[in-house]
């Protein structure tokens, strides 16, 4: 099985400050969809910035598809959706915005247009292609940002709070969009535990810069004692099972 992400002893601290990430080690295999959960300030976003090479680790090893991460090197195999989508939208039209990464990959015009059409079709935003992304609704902006990344064909897709400020309809659209991507390796940080439950087949619990739990989403998130000790709650759809378990004990 191919290793998509291999992290060994990863530590990160800003100069003269306590570490934000402390000696984390884990491996994500190709095709896995991993949910990253944990309270606010657990180090989720910092971890993403390390994986994407924006921050330099203080110590440890970080490999993506057996290739060490070098900061400042463009690597289209990794795509990231930011929590604040507006930070990601820079071009005057949706079409140009999706094209932005493709042009930087050095693709030809025909292929760029083809990829734009395909991705827009997939995300259901074809009607928005000629609109300025800045004036779209929050949900539409999220789909545009995602299209801009998906068009580049990332082998590892990273999403930071993809459902924050989405309404129920857009949230459902996002789940339906991600659901059939069976081979797509994903790493999703979210407070929306139901969303993690629906989209992921593995979950990592991060708190205080350390991995506290790693396993099947229903098992980890259904375990009330683990969840509560890290300031989280068992999602509703699992809480009935958890209470039944506890009563049986």
């Amino acid at each position, binding site marked *: 099985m191919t290793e998509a992400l291999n992290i060994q002893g990863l530590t990160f601290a800003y100069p003269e400050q306590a570490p934000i990430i402390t000696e984390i080690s884990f491996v994500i295999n190709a095709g896995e969809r991993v949910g990253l959960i944990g309270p606010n300030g657990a180090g989720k976003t910092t971890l993403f*910035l390390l994986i*994407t090479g*924006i921050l330099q680790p203080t110590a440890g090893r970080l490999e993506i598809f057996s290739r060490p991460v070098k900061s*400042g090197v*463009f690597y*289209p195999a*990794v*795509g*990231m959706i*930011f929590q*604040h989508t*507006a*930070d*990601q*939208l*820079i*071009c*005057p039209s949706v079409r140009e915005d999706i094209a*932005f*990464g493709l*042009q*930087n*990959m050095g693709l030809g015009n025909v292929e760029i247009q083809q990829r734009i059409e395909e991705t827009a079709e997939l995300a259901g935003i074809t009607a928005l292609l000629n609109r300025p992304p*800045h004036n779209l609704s929050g949900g539409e902006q999220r789909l545009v940002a995602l299209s*801009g*990344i998906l068009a*580049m064909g990332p082998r590892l897709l990273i999403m930071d709070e993809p459902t924050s400020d989405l309404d129920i309809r857009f949230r459902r659209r996002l789940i339906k969009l991600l659901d059939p991507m069976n081979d797509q390796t994903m790493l999703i940080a979210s407070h929306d535990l139901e969303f993690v439950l629906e989209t992921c087949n593995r979950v990592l619990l991060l708190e205080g810069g350390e991995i506290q739990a790693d396993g099947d989403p229903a098992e980890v998130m259904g375990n009330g004692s683990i969840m509560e000790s890290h300031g989280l709650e068992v999602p509703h759809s699992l809480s009935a099972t958890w209470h039944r378990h506890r009563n049986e004990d």
Partner: protein
Amino acid sequence: MINGAAVGSAESGSLFGRWETRLKLPGLIILVFSFSLVQDLRLLPLLLLSSMIIYRLSALPFTCLVSRVRLPGFFLLAMAVILPFWSGQTILWQFGPLALRLEGCISLLLITVKFIAIFMVVVALFATTPLPLLTRTMRALGIPWLLTDLLLFSYRYIFQLSSDLRRTHTAAHLRGFKGISLISLKTMANVTGSLLVRSHQQAERVFQAMTLRGYGNGDQALPEFRPVVADYLLLAAAVLLSAAIVLAQIFI
């Protein structure tokens, strides 16, 4: 990117931190103007001495001065290259086409010392006065509210917009943006345009929120003005020193 904000309240224990801003601001401004008036070389030691004493009084670390001198220092460097070789007739030393001129050297000395003296006083002033306090003081001193409001709100959003801008750059890098250069001018223009559009959209929301909380109805309260004797003594010292420098410049 932005970390030059007032070291401010942290230093408020010093004599300068406690000096009533409504007296400190005019006092020090008069002083730096008197510094800038100096043309007589013999007054330069006095300038340096008084600015050093003032900097001591502010109890700021020396590093504070060094970290801030870089930007304006660059300008001074350019003057140092130009003045001694092109300004004046009296040639001190000639090497081929290059001639070191007396008048230029004198000008450079004058400019450098005045720059350093004023710089120390200005750092002492601003680093011990947090911007919101400075703004309210300016308002109390009669600066139009349109300017002070503009100052306060701009200051409020600079930090946020800088981090917005930084995140946008990061996002662009992840999609292969090669960094700032002449070639990527179009992307930079797009990034700048996006920043303006987002600021504009946010301004609408900020304005609505502010109106809902009564912005525009009546003036904000001004800071209390409770000077003690020491405040006036410091002002008097600053004014006397300024007057002495001006008189010395005129009559010596």
